[in-house]
Every structure is written in C-alpha cells, then in structure tokens.
C-alpha cells in the first residue's frame, strides 16, 4: 500500500495539535489553511486555559469538579464522556504546553500562576499574560514547523477548502481546495480528513471572531451530508469593545483579575466617571450574584448587561449601549504584568488608558458552541475509549471535526478558558484513533480510481466558473451586512419566536439573492471577490439552521434565552406555599428536560435544514436546575435534592 496521509483543514490550536501528534505517530500530513497557520484566530484567545491543579486540589478541587463545572455551566447539553475525558486530561495538557516552552506567568517561587474565570470558584486557569491563545498557538506552530522541516508536513497556506471528496460508499477520501493566489484548484487524496476551522461568527456580520471564521468549511461539509449539532447555541461574550469593522474581545480575565462591572445609578450621570462616589454606583453583578459576583457564567453576565442597558435604561452613554468595566482600582504594575496585552488593545483602538479610566464595553457574538456533529466511544469509566476511530468522527466516514467547529464539550454555554483546552485536548486525543482508522482501510486513498477525485474537482470548477460569469446584479458585501443585521437582531441574547420566524423568511430571501451575485472581479489571480462570495453563499445553510434550531427550542438553556419560556422565580412568601411552588417548579423543569435536554441535529437537503433531536449522555452527572440569581433558589434546590435522593422506582404520579 502506498503511504497513507491525513489532510488537516485549519491550523488553529486543534488542527496544529492533531498535526503534530499524527506526525509523532509517523503519519504525514497535508495542512490546508486560509491563512498562514501562525495567524489562525486562536491567537486572539486571551484569558487562559483551565485545569485542576496542585493548589486547587488542596482546596477540595478535583478533575471531577472541573467536569461538573463544565457540565453545569453548559446547562447539561453536552455528552459527558468527552467532557470527562477532557477534564481528566487537562493537567497533562497544561504540562505538555509548559514543556513546549509556553511563557506561562509564574509565581514568585517559579510555579505556574493561576487566575479565576467565570463559572467556577477555583483558581484553575493558567495564563501567559493576556495573550494565552497566542502563546499556545505559537508553541504548536513551532512544533509543526519542526515536523515540516523534517518533511512530515506539507503546508498549503492561503488555500481555501472547497469540500470533502467521497467515494461511492460515501466515505471521505480527501478534499478539494483552491489556491487563493493562483486560483488553481486541486484534489488532495487522504485516508482521513480533519476539519478544524473554528467558529462561524461572520454570519453575524460583526463579532469578536476573525475574518477567517466564516463557517464556510463547516457548511461545505454540512452540504455534503455531515450533520450539525446544536447550531442555535451561540455564545455572546459579555464584554467587548464595539467597533465599526469588528467587535473586539475584552477578556474575562479582566474580571478574573478583579475587574468590576458597574453603571451609575442615575442614567447618564454627567459627572466625570472617576468622581462618581461608591454609593452612586450600581455594581449589579456583585449585588445580584454575591457568590460569583463579576464572575458569573457568561450567559448570565451577558443577559444582565443587556438587561441593564435595554430594559433598565442605565447605559453609560445615551446614544449607544455600554457599561463600565473598571480596573482602575488595581495597581498599574500588576495590570501590566497580567493583563498588558488586552489593555493595549483597548488603548490602541479607543485612545483611552483603561488603567486610568474605566473601559466602556458591551456584549458581542463570540463563540459557536454548536458545529459539525462528532461521535465518540465511551469507555467503562464514563470517559472516552482511547485510540477508538469513532472519537471525533462526523457521520461521514473518515471525516473528523475538531475544535470550535465541532459541537462537543461546551453544551449550551461555554465555560471561560475551556475552549483552548478542548481544542488542544481533542487534537492530541484524536490522532491515535485516526491512526487506527486508516490502518483498517484496505486501500490507500492515493490508490483509488482517479475518477473519484476528478468528479469532485470538476464539480468545484463548475461552481467557480458559474460564479465568475453570473450577472444577477447583487453585491455580496452588502448582502453580508444585511445577513449580519438580521441574525444579530433575532438570534443573539434574547430570542422571540415571531422575530425568529420573520428572520428565517428574510434570510431565505437573502439566500436566494446571494445566489445571484455579480462579481466586480472576474479575474483569475488572487480573486478575493469570488472567494468571499462562495463563503457568503455557504453561510446561509448554517444561518438557517441557527434560526430554525432556535425557533423550535421553546425553552431557556445557556446561551439560548427565550423570555416567553423562562422558568420564573418563586413568588410565594409563606413557607408551605413556597415549598409547593418549588415542587411545581421542579415538575415543570423535569417536563421541559424530557423535551429539550437533547442535542439539536440539523441535516441539509439543499433547501431547508431539517431538525431532529438526539438524547444526551448524562451518565456521570445527573441534570439539575441551573439556578443563578433566581429568587427561591434555595427552596428549589432543596426540593430537587430530595427528589434526586428518593428511590428511583417510586413514581409520584401513580
């Protein structure tokens, strides 16, 4: 058999981790990326990477607690075996990255320093200043460059992935990609293919994501028959700097290091911000969530900030929504040492030094928790079976999905500082499984009949040629702005069914118009116009899945919030009545879980996405209500605990 190869599409943390591990196992890799891999958007992750560690262990932490925080934070919507495996691997992942030379911050004694992040009470997050993603990505990029110098990796940078190639049985046998400089299209036969192309924030027009995160690659797999999981779960990060071209992240680490969120109690208080006395400041997160304070999970913080501006009219500015994120009480040298990178960004783009003046921030679309459906194989401990070829494989045989573009790990809401972990972990973990998968193939992809590859290539060449000669008159850049507007209004912080219906029909209309774009550049050299238009057209199947998934999910779960179906606080004051109310609350919660504690599965037939549901594996930790900030939470929790400990065979309805 000729040499077997793997194609990795996307060179962020997940793609690079998988590449270097495959190389270590002796498997050569073709690495395809829209940009030089060192520029992948993982570089912009700021705050840190989680693991239970020696310090937190001595305060009662364990890998189990990390698992629990992830699952509870994600509102129980993730399959628990992958999350469990990840939490138990986390300390090893951080040690490996330390060995690879990541310049993690150190304590006085020389150990790794840690900070706190939202959704946990432990200081679990290792960090390299406020540019942790950059440092982690560079360490992996350096390892891959090392393998490249040894001839194990061929890099195809500035290449656009156009779609998977499948043999007659449907198995993925490589990809078709296009050189974005010469516009040449080529087939890349491969015995296994990994897609690790990140999130799809560009569907929202402006987000904290980079211009590469357009969802095109995932959509091309989706259109080829791969399933999507939980597309409607889009995390809106509570704190970002609004901008005309994009929304820039202001990391949760700013709050992890003591940053405080507040607004003046008087709307648009005219006094200079620093002179407003404590008594006239409303630290709404600290007041409403005394235990977690500014570090409540992201969905909660986002909604509270949104609410304080939209419903309570307390935005700091009259014409624009924002609240203060205040670091000015912290010593400058401390800020420079731990948060320098992000404070510089604020300073450079806003022209104001956040060490002296509180920052003005507002929520922004940040992370796609849904993505390509990926499988897993459970072991007897409730984790994953190492080396099993099914781990991270999509429903298309031989096509794997990793990192932000898959739907595992984060559930209904991503816990801060878990995404870097999930990317590196899944990249490392998947490689031995892929090795076993390709070992079991009877024939190397390179030995298949050329017709398999020629057909796939011809299809892409046709699409390209048709686009260049299309004269429909539509402008792709303007359509993109419209799409972003519709999506941002209907499918971010608060979702309302009538608005989702309206958005779906508007997006369908835009979809049709996008198929009739005229290009202002019909040339055959570095034609960014045609590449953008393809990506735009491919945003629609995903955008429709987001809207339809959100429309059908009549509940509130993590990042998906529909006030119409929210679970209210308790109102009864009298203990007996309050308890009965809590019982009814729990009944309703259980009923709702029967219906919606499920993964949303979207499939695509060319017209409209179809939505079905799959059960979630909650084998390690039984679902419980997520009760942040709810009045009467203690009573509900009490009732819930009693129910959970009651013998299972007693059915109260009989």
């Amino acid at each position, binding site marked *: 058999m000729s040499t077997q190869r793997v194609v990795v599409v996307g060179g962020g943390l997940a793609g690079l981790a998988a590449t270097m591990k495959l190389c270590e196992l002796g498997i050569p890799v073709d690495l395809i990326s829209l940009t030089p891999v060192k520029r992948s958007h993982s570089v912009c992750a700021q705050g840190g990477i989680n693991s239970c560690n020696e310090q937190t262990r001595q305060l009662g932490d364990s890998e189990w607690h990390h698992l629990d925080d992830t699952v509870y934070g994600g509102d129980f919507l993730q399959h628990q075996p992958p999350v469990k495996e990840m939490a138990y691997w986390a300390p090893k992942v951080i040690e490996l990255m330390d060995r690879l030379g990541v310049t993690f911050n150190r304590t006085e004694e020389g150990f790794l320093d840690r900070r706190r992040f939202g959704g946990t009470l432990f200081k679990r997050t290792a960090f390299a200043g406020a540019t942790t993603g950059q440092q982690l990505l560079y360490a992996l990029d350096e390892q891959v460059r090392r393998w490249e110098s040894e001839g194990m990796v061929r890099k195809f940078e500035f290449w656009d992935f156009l779609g998977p190639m499948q043999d007659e049985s449907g198995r993925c046998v490589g990809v078709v990609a296009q050189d974005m400089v010469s516009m040449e299209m080529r087939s890349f036969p491969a015995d296994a293919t990994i897609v690790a192309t990140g999130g799809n924030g560009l569907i929202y027009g402006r987000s904290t994501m980079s211009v590469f995160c357009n969802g095109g690659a995932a959509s091309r797999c989706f259109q080829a028959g791969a399933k999507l999981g939980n597309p409607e779960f889009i995390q809106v990060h509570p704190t970002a700097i609004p901008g005309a071209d994009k929304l820039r992240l202001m990391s949760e680490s700013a709050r992890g290091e003591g940053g405080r969120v507040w607004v003046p109690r008087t709307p648009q208080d005219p006094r200079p911000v620093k002179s407003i006395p404590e008594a006239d400041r409303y630290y709404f997160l600290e007041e409403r969530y005394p235990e977690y304070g500014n570090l409540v999970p992201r969905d909660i913080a986002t909604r509270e900030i949104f609410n304080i501006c939209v419903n309570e009219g307390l935005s700091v500015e009259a014409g*624009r*929504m924002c609240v203060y994120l205040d670091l000015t009480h912290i010593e400058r040298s401390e800020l420079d040492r731990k948060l320098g990178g992000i404070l510089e960004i604020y300073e450079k783009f806003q022209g104001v030094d956040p060490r002296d003046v509180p920052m003005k921030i507002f929520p922004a679309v940040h992370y796609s928790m849904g993505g390509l459906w990926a499988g897993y194989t459970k072991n007897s401990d409730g984790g994953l079976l190492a080396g099993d070829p099914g781990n991270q494989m999509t429903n298309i045989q031989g096509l794997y999905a990793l990192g932000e573009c898959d739907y595992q790990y984060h559930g209904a809401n991503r816990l801060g500082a878990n995404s870097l972990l999930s990317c590196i972990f899944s990249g490392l973990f998947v490689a031995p499984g892929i090795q076993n998968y390709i070992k079991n193939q009877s024939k190397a992809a390179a030995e298949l009949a050329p017709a398999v590859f020629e057909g796939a290539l011809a299809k892409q060449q046709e699409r390209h040629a048709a686009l260049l000669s299309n004269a429909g008159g539509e402008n792709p850049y303007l359509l993109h702005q419209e799409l972003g507007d519709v999506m941002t209004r209907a499918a971010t912080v608060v979702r309302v069914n009538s608005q989702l219906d309206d958005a779906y029909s508007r997006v369908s209309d835009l979809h049709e118009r996008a198929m009739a774009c005229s290009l202002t550049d019909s040339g055959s050299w570095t034609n960014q116009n045609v590449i953008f238009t393809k990506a735009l057209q491919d945003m629609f199947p995903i955008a429709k899945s987001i809207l339809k998934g959100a429309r059908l999910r009549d509940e509130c779960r993590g990042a998906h919030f529909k006030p119409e179906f929210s679970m209210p606080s308790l109102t009864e004051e009298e203990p007996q009545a309050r308890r009965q109310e809590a019982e009814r609350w729990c009944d309703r919660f259980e009923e709702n879980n029967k219906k919606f504690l499920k993964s949303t599965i979207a499939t695509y037939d060319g017209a409209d996405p179809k939505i079905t549901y799959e059960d979630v594996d909650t084998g390690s930790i039984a679902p419980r209500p997520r009760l942040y900030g709810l009045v009467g939470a203690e009573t509900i929790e009490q009732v819930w605990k009693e129910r959970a400990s009651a013998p299972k065979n007693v059915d109260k309805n009989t």
Partner: protein
Amino acid sequence: MTATNTHHQASTPQHPEKVNVRVLRQDGPGQPTYWERHQVEYEENMNVISVLQRIAAQAATVEGNKVTPVAWDCGCLEEVCGSCTMVVNGKVRQSCTALVDRLLEDNSAEIELRPMTKFPVIRDLIVDRTRLFQGLERVKAWVPVDGYSDMGPGPRQSRKQQEQSYPLSQCMSCGCCLDACPQYQKIELHRRPGETEEQFEDRKREAYGSQFMGAAPISQAVLFNSHPTGNSLAEERVEALIAPGGVQACGNAQNCVAVCPKEIPLTTSIGRAGRAATVHSLKKMFDS
C-alpha cells in the same frame, strides 16, 4: 451588537464628510504599479480596514470608474495575528490599528496605502512573506521535546526568566522590523520557462536562505536559547546566526525596534545574539 450600536452621529465640523484614499495597486507579480484614488464616507472610529471594506463594496474609483476591489490581507483586526501589515502614510504598520482620525490629523487631505516594500507583491496590498517564516526554520525556533506524551511538567522557571521571555514570545511575524531594515533587501524571483513548481520553490528557498534574516528570527533564536530545554539546540542556532545572512549582517540602524508594533526589545536581542556569536566563534577558533 450591530443592531444596537450602529450609531453614526452626524460628522462634527472638524471631520470631513468623505475620506480620500490613494492606493498603490499592482495586478500581479511583475506587473506595473499604478495609483488609484478612492473616496469613502467618513464614519466615527474608522480604521484602515473599514476603509478598505467600504472600497471593496463600492468597487469604483473617485472618478466613478468601475474597478476590481483592492486586494489586501487581514485576519483578527485586533493587532495580534500579524496579517494586515502595510505601509500607511509612509510608515510600515498594522492597518487595523491605523485609526482614520489619527491619520487625518497628520494629513487631512488623503490617506496613502501601499504594500510592504521588502516582500514580493502578490496583488495590490498583499505580499508574500514566506521568507519570514523560513527565517524561523533557519534558526530552529522551537523546543525540541522528546514527544507529546504525558511526561510531567516542564522545567521550573523563575518569574524573572518568564518576564524576560514573554515580550519576545509576543512576536507575531508581521514583518514590520524587516520592512524597515536597511540591511534587509527585497528578493523577488520569477518562475523561469520550463521550471517546475518544485524547482522554483527550491530556488526561492536557497535565495532566501543565504540573505539577511532580519530581527524577528534573531530574536526568536534568543528566546529559544534562553529556554532550559530549547537551549539544547543553542549551538545549532548560533551556527545559523554566524552563517551568511546571520546576525553580523545587522548594520545597527535600530529601525526594527522603532517600528515594532509590539515594542519587542529587538536590538537587545540582536546584541545578545551578537555576543553569543562572538563567543562561539572565539571558542571554535581556540578549539580547532
């Protein structure tokens, strides 16, 4: 959130209604260059990227001639990915942090955009920076670990050591330091008739490999030599630094450190690399 924050106040008198932009264009390698004038509506908080986005959407010059959109390279728009380097009003920098208000303060008539000067132009404002990444390979800018299995933590390091390394590890390979360096000369090769793609790549690699590598890779060599494990390749790195195109080619103009958007102490790195090279050369002289 687009819906809630797209709030464009009417331009105040000190701002122009329109922004004039002059772009140096080139349709492809070896093609002639030409200037083209564009005009976009002024908006608050605009940067050069948003100006280019508007130009792409309208695809017509100020004279109203239909043209292809200007091609440029960008990524994160947060000055971390290193993609969007270009020469803005005569200065090499990241275009995402080039704020229009500031540029107009310097020259209210016009913003001038041109590609980096030391790298071959692919099209318009996009250049080929392969040589920069190859520099990293030349100095083996990595930690040669045994493997990726679980082998426990890395070597303990002091906070002082981390604080010395961290600024160097922030280098985003944007290429500003190389573009501003008088000793870093442009190498532009064209494919010869009958030459295969592989042969052409080999020829480029050889040409790049013998010329001055510039500040960015030298600084990375210093970073990895100071890492307790990375240091095991120190000798090979020093060999690369004293080879043709190494640290001795530096003319100490100090332009690199002046233009670095991340304020990396590049000249300090070059000094350290130079000393290591001298020590190494002397040692070799006495050993032989």
